[in-house]
C-alpha cells in the first residue's frame, strides 16, 4: 500500500512539477506570435456560411513586424484578384484594382465583409492584454485537459487592459511544447463567441507555424473559416513590398 501511495504521490508531484504557471504559458504564446524576421505565406481561407455554401479566398501574405507592416495581395476568387490590403504603422488601406484607388480602412470597418475589423490587425503583446484568471483561493485557473486526444494545459485568462476584443479567453496548449491547440473567446456576459482550433504545425526556420486552423463562429452556428498556410518563408523581404506602389504594380 505504501508503495502504491508512493507511486501516486510521485505521479502527482511529477504532474505538478511539469505544469508551468499561467504567465509562462502566455509568454510562450506571445513568443510564438512574435516574429523577428519578415514572413511570407500563401494563405487559403475557406469560409463556410450557413445557407450560402463555401467561399474560397486566396492571398499572398507578407509581414514585417519591425515596423508593424503587412501586405495582403488577393489572388482568388477571380472577383477579388488584384485587390489587397496594406498596413504601415497605424495606417491601414484597402486597394481596389478596378478603381486603382487606396481607401483607408477605419478601425471598426469590416474586412471583405468578414467578422474581422481594421482594428483587429493592431497587434499587441499577449501578456500586456491578458493575465491568468484566479479562483477564490487565488489559484490560477490552469488544469490538464485533452484536445483530440493530445494532452494539453487549459488556461483561463482575463483582460488586464481595456482595449481588447474579448474580456475572457481560454487557451489549450500542448503539454509537450506549449503550442496552441485551441482557444475560446467569451463576451463580458460569459457567452462563448468564438473557438479556434490549430490542427497542424510545421517547423520553418527553427520555429513552429500553425499551418492549418479552423475558426468557428459560436454565435452564428454553422459559420466557420478554415485557414491553410502554404509556402511559408521566413527571412528578410524586399522593403519595396511594403509599399502602396508594389501592391498596385503587383495587382496588374
Amino acid at each position, binding site marked *: 500500500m505504501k508503495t502504491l501511495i508512493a507511486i501516486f504521490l510521485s505521479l502527482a508531484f511529477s504532474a505538478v512539477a511539469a505544469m508551468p504557471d499561467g504567465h509562462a504559458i502566455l509568454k510562450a504564446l506571445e513568443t510564438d506570435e512574435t516574429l523577428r524576421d519578415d514572413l511570407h505565406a500563401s494563405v487559403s481561407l475557406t469560409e463556410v456560411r450557413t445557407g450560402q455554401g463555401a467561399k474560397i479566398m486566396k492571398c499572398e501574405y507578407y509581414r514585417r513586424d519591425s515596423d508593424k507592416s503587412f501586405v495582403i495581395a488577393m489572388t482568388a476568387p477571380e472577383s477579388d484578384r488584384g485587390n489587397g490590403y496594406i498596413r504601415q504603422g497605424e495606417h491601414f488601406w484597402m486597394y481596389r484594382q478596378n478603381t486603382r484607388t487606396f481607401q483607408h*480602412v477605419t*478601425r471598426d470597418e469590416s474586412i471583405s465583409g468578414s467578422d474581422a475589423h481594421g482594428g483587429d490587425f493592431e497587434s499587441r503583446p499577449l501578456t500586456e492584454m491578458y493575465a491568468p484568471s484566479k479562483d477564490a483561493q487565488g489559484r490560477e485557473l490552469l488544469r490538464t485537459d485533452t484536445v483530440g486526444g493530445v494532452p494539453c494545459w487549459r488556461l483561463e485568462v482575463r483582460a488586464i487592459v481595456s482595449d481588447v476584443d474579448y474580456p475572457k479567453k481560454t487557451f489549450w496548449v500542448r503539454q509537450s511544447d506549449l503550442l496552441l491547440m485551441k482557444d475560446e473567446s467569451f463576451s463580458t456576459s460569459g457567452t462563448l463567441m468564438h473557438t479556434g482550433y490549430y490542427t497542424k504545425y510545421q517547423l520553418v526556420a527553427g520555429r513552429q507555424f500553425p499551418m492549418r486552423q479552423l475558426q468557428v463562429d459560436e454565435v452564428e452556428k454553422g459559420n466557420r473559416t478554415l485557414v491553410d498556410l502554404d509556402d511559408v518563408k521566413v527571412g528578410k523581404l524586399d522593403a519595396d513590398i511594403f509599399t502602396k506602389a508594389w501592391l498596385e504594380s503587383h495587382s496588374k
Partner: protein
Amino acid sequence: MKTLLFFAFRNILRQKRRAVLLGTAMALGTCFLVLAGSFVAGITQTLFERVMVYVAGHTSVIVGDRGYLYRTALRGEISFRDRLAKLPHVKRVQETMAIMCRMVGEKKGDNGILIGVDLNQKLSAKELAATRDNFPMVSGSFLDLSRPELDVPAILAKSKADYLGVKLGDELAVRFQDSRGRRQVAHLVLVGIFQPSNSFMEAPLFVSMPRLKAMMDMDSTDLPDLYLTLEDPQKNAIPTADSIRRIMASRTAALPVSVAGKSGSGNAFAAGLKTDSASRARVDRELRPDLGWETGRAILPADLAAKLSVRPGDTVRISSGLSHAGDPVTDFAEVAGTWNPPPGAQGLVLWDEDAFQGERSFRSRLPGDSGIPQVQAASKLLDTLLSPEWTVLPRTPTTDDVREQVRKIGERDWKSPVVAVRTMYETGEMILKLASALNVITLVAVLVLFVVVLTGVVNTLRMTVRERTREIGTLRALGMQASQVRVLFLLETGLLALLSALAGTAGALLLMFGLSRLVFGIEGNPLSILLVRGHLVFVPGILSTLGQILLVVGMAVLAAWGPSAAAARLSPAVALRHHE
C-alpha cells in the same frame, strides 16, 4: 382693355382647330414640366423627411473616438444635452445611437443597425402621426420596448423578421462591438414587427435607449450622438449648428491616475502628450526624455519616479479607476524619462496621447474628477502639445466635406475624441444638388420642346397676321392704335398659353393622382428608397407650379412679340388694300 380681351377671345374661338392644336402642344409641355418638378420635389422630400432626418437630424452632434466611427460616447458629458435643449428654435434634443450589428435568427443571420429609441420623449401629434406612418406596426407595439420583465425587447422590420425566421416572442442573438471595442453578444426578444415605409427602414433593429446604453457599456452620464429637432429647420439648422460648435469648445484633458512601479504606487494626474512627428521633435527638444518621445511611453515627475523606483526603460502600470461595468481601467507605459513640472502642475504624468485618450474613453466619470488645474498650470509650458478633452471638427457645408471628414476620422488625424456638428441640409447637400440637376435637366428638356412648339406659334401668328391684314386695316381705320394691335395679338397668344398651361397643370395633377396609386414591387432594389410603401411620391408646390405656368405664358408671349409687332407696324391704308 376689356374690348381687346373680347377680341382676343373671339379670335381664339374663330380659329378653333388651330388653337386646339397649339394649345395641346403647350398643355403637354406644361404637364411634363409640372409632373417632373413635382416628382423631383417628392424624391427630395422623401429622402429628407424619411431618410436624412433619421440619419442626420435637423442638426446633429456626432461623436467619434480615436478612429472608431461607432464608438459614440463622450464620457460624463451628458449635461450638454440639456444645454443644447435651451438654445433658441430647438424643439427637442434626442440622444441617438446607431450600432452596426449582426443579427442571428432561427434560420439565418444578417447585418443590421441597432437603434436606441427614447420612449420618454414627448412628440407632437403631427410627429407621432409621422412616426406611425413611417413605422406602421404589423404586430406588437413600440411601447413594448420598455417592458421591464424582458432583458432586451426589440422591434424589427417584417422583411428582416421573415428573412431571419423569427416571429413575435422569439429570441434573436445580436453580435456587436460595445463602446470599448469589445465583442459582445446579446439575446433580444422580439416584441414588435413593423412594415417599413421604404427600403432604408428595413435595416434598423430598435431597442430602448437605456438598454442599448447598457449593452454598449455606457451609463446615463455618457453623451452619445445627439439629434436636434428645430422650428423651421431650413432657416435655423445652420445657425444652430454654428452655436453648438461654439458651446462645445473643449479644454485640455486631465485624468486622475494611480501609477504603479517597482516599489509601490502613487496617485497622480495624467495629461496626454501628442506623438505626431512635430510634437515628438518638440518634446525631445524641450523635455529631453532619455528614450525619446514615442507612442506607448510616459514621462513621470522626477519625485514620482524616485518614489516608484523606476528608471527610463522600465514599465509602469497606470490605472484610472473603473469602467461603467466595474472593470478596472488600466494600461502600461514605458518610462521615457522624468521631468520637473512647473509650479501648480506637481504630480503631472505626461502620457502618450493615444493611450491616455484610450483610458479616458473606457473610464466612467466620477463626481469631482479633476486634474484640470494641474494640466492648466502645465499648459503655459506645453500648450499645443497637450491633448484636448475632445476636438470640435470644422463644419462641413457639403456632402463631400462630410465624406472627407469621415475619412480623416478613420485615418486618425485626431487622436482625441472628435465632435462634429452637422445639419441634414449640409450632410444631404448632394441630394439637393441632385434635385437641382434633375430640375435643370427637366427644364432644358421642356425648353427644347417649347422651342418646337413656339416655332409653331410664331408661324401660326404670321399666317394669322397675313390672313387678317384687311381686318387689321379696318380696326386701324376705326381708330385702333398700333400698340393696341400689338397687345391684341399678344393677348391672344397669352390667353391661349394660359388656358393651355392650366389644362396641362390639371392633367399633371390627374396623372400624379393616378401614378401615386400604383404600387411598384421593387423591394430589394436600391431605388425603392425613393418610394413610400411602394408608391411614387409627388409634391406639387403652389409657388413652383405658378412659376412654371408663368414661364410657359411668358415664353409664348415672347415668341409672339415679333409677329405682333409686325401686325402693329402695318399702315391702315396698305392693310385695307391687301388682297390674298
